[in-house]
């Protein structure tokens, strides 16, 4: 399955990387932390790790460490605007439970 980006999200990521001036892609993962067990990690990637799984979506390279993949396999990343705020939204089919704000989750 893998991970995908919506077109809007991809456009923003490309724009951010271009303005930042460096970066080979976007690193997505999960960490065991937070009020409901797991939390997302979303970072710029400057180097490819040896174990990294790579996915291409709408022209953006997505890097995922193999341990994180089972928790987020099939996920789609979207970019949304809510009032004055804007940012990335994770549509993760593996999530069974999440905390009120959705920043941490359980599978």
């Amino acid at each position: 399955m893998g991970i995908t980006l919506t077109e809007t999200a991809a456009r923003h990521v490309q724009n951010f990387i271009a303005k930042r001036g460096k970066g080979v892609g976007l690193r997505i993962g999960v960490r065991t932390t937070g009020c409901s067990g797991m939390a997302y990690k979303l970072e710029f990637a400057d180097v490819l790790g040896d174990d990294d799984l790579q996915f291409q979506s709408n022209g953006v390279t997505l890097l995922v460490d193999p341990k994180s993949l089972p928790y987020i396999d099939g996920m789609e990343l979207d970019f949304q605007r809510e009032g004055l705020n804007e940012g990335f939204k994770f549509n993760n089919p593996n999530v069974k439970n999440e905390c009120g704000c959705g920043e941490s989750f359980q599978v």
Partner: protein
Amino acid sequence: MALLQISEPGMSTAPHQHRLAVGIDLGTTNSLVATVRNGISTVLNDEQGRAMLPSVVRYLDAQNILVGEEAQRTQSEDPTNTISSVKRFMGRGLADIGDISRFPYRFLDDSAPHGAQVRLRTVAGAKSPVEVSAEILKMLRARAEASLGGELVGAVITVPAYFDDAQRQATKDAARLAGLNVLRLLNEPTAAAIAYGLDNGSEGVYAVYDLGGGTFDISILRLSRGVFEVLSTNGDSALGGDDFDHRIYCWLLEKNALSALGPQDTRLLLTQARTAKEQLTEHAEARITVMLSGGEIIDNVLSQAAFHEMSNNLVQRTLQPMRRALRDAGLKVQDVNGVVMVGGATRMPQVQRAVGEFFAQTPLTNLDPDKVVALGAAIQANLLAGNRGEDDWLLLDVIPLSLGLETMGGLAEKLIPRNSTIPTARAQEFTTYKDGQTAMSIHVVQGERELVSDCRSLAKFELRGIPAMVAGAARIRVTFQVDADGLLSVAAREMGSGVEAMIEVKPSYGLSDSEITRMLQESGQYAKEDMQARALREQQTEAHQLIEAVQNALAQDGDLLVKAERERIVEQVQMLQDSLQQTDAALLKRAITNLNDATVSFAQARMDKSVSRALAGKNISELEVKS
């Protein structure tokens, strides 16, 4: 679910722990708030998509307040309760302001002590400039929190480079009142230079030309090792973009033979003049058509050339402060490595051309000059909030001279070495010098030299209530802490009893650059002498301590010695005392060693005596168990 932002590699935050930080340009005319999101510094807009918040506050009644555009638009309805350009009053007393009749406000004729801040009487009661500024900051804070979806951990707020301590403190107070945690105050020209990434570039001298709505500032900065230092500032507090509008306005009056317009028509014409000015930035000519309240129609075409000619002397007026700033910095035009343009009025091509000609180089204009200060402040805030990796850390402020304290023998023990980045904290343990010592005097000094007498004394305080112990048994932890604003606090704590004392000092206060330079030069020049002086003082201290210990021992247990042995020790004590007059550290060291050697068997005898004293009166069975 929450909306996430992309972090720098390895800098993902735990859920609900986002380190949201903003940069705020608290301007005289307009204020802005910016943040670093997804790695990019961006200005945050309000619901209407406006980045700039006019720095205008109108008090409607005791509860209701208008801030920004609305307050500005309705200013003429209630001038006494509508406060604009409050930044000019920050940290100022009535005496600083001069002719108060220029302002439509009711200044409070306080019998407050001299130097107190001005206050204005409004429908909502007496308001200080701090309170008025806090309203602007509250508005920006609310905008930022709505945009970032969480509470802010802190803000960097910019201030003019020439702001003094009182004005900076007033700005901090306003932020606190608005519920903002001030990570740091940042000089406006420095913020602009950071926005252009000059701090990552080559070292050198930069000029920041800031032509705002109503003020002009020129600052000369030097970047060395990632730190911006303001070398000089100059300017004209009554020159800005509004004066250019006024020139067009006067031209319109003249062209149409108009005189003395009502306030409404004046406002209308000024607005048109401003629009024309903005058009002329990109177009060769601008057409101005207005219908006045009396029905007269104005229809004129203003060419770029004509506008440049009528505003030429305004542009020229910025050159004199530039020359003065360079002269104060002791520099020439060719020493300047780059020029940064700040303020909306620097969009005008004639301004850019004049500045370019003056410095003989093309000024940096690719960032929005209205936003550049806020953008730089946001980058700094992001850094201070800890959202960037260690290796990305750039020095911004350093301690110019080492900070330390006086130890026995008048030696300076450095706790924080010079060029440490601030904020910083260091701790070290010290002990007592004499038996039964119950107080310790802590003398805080600044400088690179080894002897306290060659350093600058900053503060003295005493730690009292140390429980009586033998010399060297007390553990006194002294902590030096320098906050981001250069404020040093020194705390001493006896670890056993917990007694504590502390003091706050401002280390750089009153030290000019040349004094710092002199102190640094001397430290290099006298390095060798200092080393010898230190060695000597250390030996002297040790000698004093040894003599005292031996004399105490002789007084207590002198009966343990045979006459010859006793005489030998007394002789060695005398020799050591004589050597103390010498300035030869090696000689002194030899005398110390001799005395130590002479007392070996005495020390042994005393040890035996104290053991037998400890055993005396003990039950025999206890001794057996132990053996």
